[in-house]
């Protein structure tokens, strides 16, 4: 199974995401922001970083990249898409996911090991977890505070579209401690913390992030 990992100018965690895909058992395929086809991948990951420097709103320029048109089309047809950190921001800017990620409430970039609870284990990217499972993976961003209007929040909560929540103190001011959400169909997932940095206790806090990358294999088997 082939999982595309998109590199925008300024993407930083692309090689980490590719490594995580491979360790998880799939094959990572490099996609470039200017690519005109998705190279027959079965799923796509938008990794973290500062695409185009994020000098405008994070992800606001990347959503117009040629490859994003293809990603949006594919996502609408059900292809699994995972946006991590900056990738999550791009998915929100692309309207594949609702809401927006804003400046952390304390205005500092924050890099730390963060405990999160997997709330929804039925999406394409979370089936390897049990519902309510708590895992610790790195959180690292300056604009990770998930915000949306009350109506959207109610929709997300009522339909089980919150897939992960921060455990303990709110690290960045996200509404309802939201760390990740999914679309109605459950194929598109946005996640603020970084599972690709938690695939080996040697280089990350745990190996508990690997579940996101093995889940995608389950999704394909189905």
């Amino acid at each position: 199974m082939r999982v595309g990992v998109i590199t925008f100018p300024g993407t930083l965690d692309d090689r980490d995401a590719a490594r995580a895909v491979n360790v998880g058992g799939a094959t990572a395929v490099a996609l470039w922001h200017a690519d005109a086809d998705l190279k027959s991948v079965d799923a796509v990951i938008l990794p973290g970083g500062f695409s185009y420097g994020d000098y405008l709103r994070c992800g606001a320029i990347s959503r117009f990249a040629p490859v994003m048109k293809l990603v949006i089309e594919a996502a609408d047809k059900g292809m699994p898409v995972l946006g991590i950190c900056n990738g999550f921001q791009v998915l929100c800017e692309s309207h594949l996911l609702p809401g927006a990620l804003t400046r952390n409430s304390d205005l500092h970039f924050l890099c730390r090991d963060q405990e999160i609870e997997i709330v929804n284990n039925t999406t394409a990217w979370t089936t390897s977890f049990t519902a309510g499972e708590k895992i610790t993976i790195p959180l690292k961003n300056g604009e990770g505070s998930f915000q949306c209007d009350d109506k959207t929040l109610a929709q997300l909560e009522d339909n089980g579209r919150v897939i992960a929540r921060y455990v303990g103190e709110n690290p960045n001011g996200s509404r309802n401690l939201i760390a990740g959400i999914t679309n109605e169909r459950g194929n598109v997932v946005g996640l603020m913390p970084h599972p690709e940095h938690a695939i080996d206790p040697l280089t990350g806090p745990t190996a508990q992030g690997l579940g996101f990358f093995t889940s995608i294999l389950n999704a394909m088997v189905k």
Partner: protein
Amino acid sequence: MSLDTVAIAQLTPDNKQPFAELGLKADEYARIKEILGRRPTSSELAMYSVMWSEHCSYKSSKVHLKQFGDKAPKSDALLVGIGENAGVVDVGQGYAVTFKIESHNHPSFVEPYQGAATGIGGIVRDILTMGARPIAVMDPLRFGPADAPDTRRVLPGIVAGIGGYGNCLGLPNIGGEVVFDQTYAGNPLVNALCIGVMRHSDIKLAKAAGAGNLVVLFGAKTGGDGIGGVSVLASETFGAGGSTKRPSVQVGDPFVEKILIECSLEIFAEDLVVGIQDLGGAGLSCATSELASGGSGGMKVALDKVPLRDPSLSPEEILMSESQERMCAIVEPHKLARFLEICKKWDVTVTAIGEVTDGDHLEITWNGEVIVNVPPRTVAHEGPVYNRPLAQPLYIDEVNSQKVNVPIPTTMSEIKAAVLKLAAAPNLADKSWVTSQYDKYVQGNTIQSQPDDSGMVRINEVTHLGVAISTDANANWSYLNPYQGAKLALAEAARNIATAGARPLAVTNCLNFGSPEDPGVMWQFAESVRGLADGCLEMGLPVTGGNVSFYNQTGAVAILPTPVIGVLGVIQDVRTRTPMSFNVAGLDLYLLGDTYEDLAGSEWAFLHGERVGQSPSADLAREMRLIELLLAGHQAKLFIAAHDLSQGGLSAGLTEMVLRHSVGADITLENVGVGLLSESPGRVVVAIDQSKSEDLIKLSKQYAITLTKIGSTGGDSLTINGCVITLDELRTAHTSTFPKLFG
């Protein structure tokens, strides 16, 4: 202003020129005239003034730095030594690692965020220029008193700048230091270290060889920022009431730098350059003159072709601009098309601005008229050299003859109070407030980072080869005895990587001092260099490069002499590294090394306002035996944990160990007060399985290192001679200092 050309300069030999305003002395100006046989054009004057500045020419330090070459130990590891953008060492398996520290002190005081950010940008380009992929950064920082109002302006800005730039480049920040002292008020030290890795065959050098090859400028467009940054800012003392000099600080664009890194690496991978140089201090003046003198000397540049952000810039300003994120490459004509193609892929601005000639002069034209015609070596390498007067300052005898007078805890309550006071002291307190603003995970190869003894990154995922690096300085010791202080910092940095099981390989340094025009400061500098050179020779570690930062003083008050020493080492299998702490109970804790009443220059003395006495003397033979013991023990898988003792002594070392994984320890010390507070060098605490004690005793005898059992691990407190300090109260003391100070 009308254009000043070589032809005009010949016709108007007596024109008055603003050499003093540009920082040149009268005799330096006279020397330029002598070299050229005429007065310099205004563009030539601009070039000489920035290149002959203290920052670029090392004119006050050169005579001393020579010792690093003269006393260099024989080393098979050194692939590229002092003189290039950064030194390169062989770490085995065909890999070469390049590393270097630079200062960005003065700009960071003027404009903390941009000053610190562009400090990262500059050092990263130095590493990239060698042909290497940058893989990690580190930042040794020093500030005025932690509770001073200006520190609250400077520190958050500098930390945000380092994070803002480094995070956006995708470089893990794996360590550094944060130290406070009154003398750094108004003179914060922002030193930035970068490590890069490449294959041996990929090493690039700054030389313009081959007549007909093209001079290609790529990266950001040139703007008016940072004009004369190095000569104006880093080469003089700040006056009390001077202008803010803010326009002299460069403004960074990390996104452009990230693109430049990826673009350059792709260009290197296809072997498209003959030579390469980044544009940092002194901008195009530096890059063109250094590239030209690295080759045969001949180069022609059409300055009007340089892409500008501000079209009103004069040729002099373009030559002096320190706009960031620019590189200059020498490219064979038949490879230019591919070069341009890769730049286009990355949306990087690129322009051929000149060519290498078979002459020996650097000729720069502006719309066809010659405005510079100089022998490039006289600009880049043959600047003035000063043997500045030096004299041991009066304070030395005065402080050395006094005895440290501090209270030594003896009762239970005194012991507890002392341990908690040190745990909370700004210099020793938990630095998460700072390091949590840095990305330590990106690239997925970080094995160790703050608060570990050293930073460690994996360079090969299959063979598990890795490198470790530590930077250290003890300015209090350097103040009492700069010769010993430099040696002790070297020993500490080497020890800090050996505790993890990495073998020390090479040294870099960033020498931060006051004004070289003060004979006392010059003596501190000379003694520090002598100490470091002697130390490196004795320990067999070559100095691969470094940086000197003078004029770190306000009025007559200089900073403490602060030679920051970085030691790089190699570890064959990062999976086997020894961590700095334990996460299980029931282990035995031993102290390696001797403890004396070394309170002079200690954190405990600093907390009591005492900066007197005699610093310890470095015993490098013993340090090397200790390092060999640590490496042998690591090889034999003897240690569960190993932690270096330095500032704050055993008290601080144990605090860090028990808090790391929230596993306590029960400690018994013979002379508890001195035992906790002394900072005797060459000491390490190790945790071992009880069954391994015979092996450890054997090793200690083999390497003649004193071994003392001090206790065992377990429980939820740090208990010292029956005095119980719960981990909760210890953690509160250790972690609340920074949030309280900086919000």
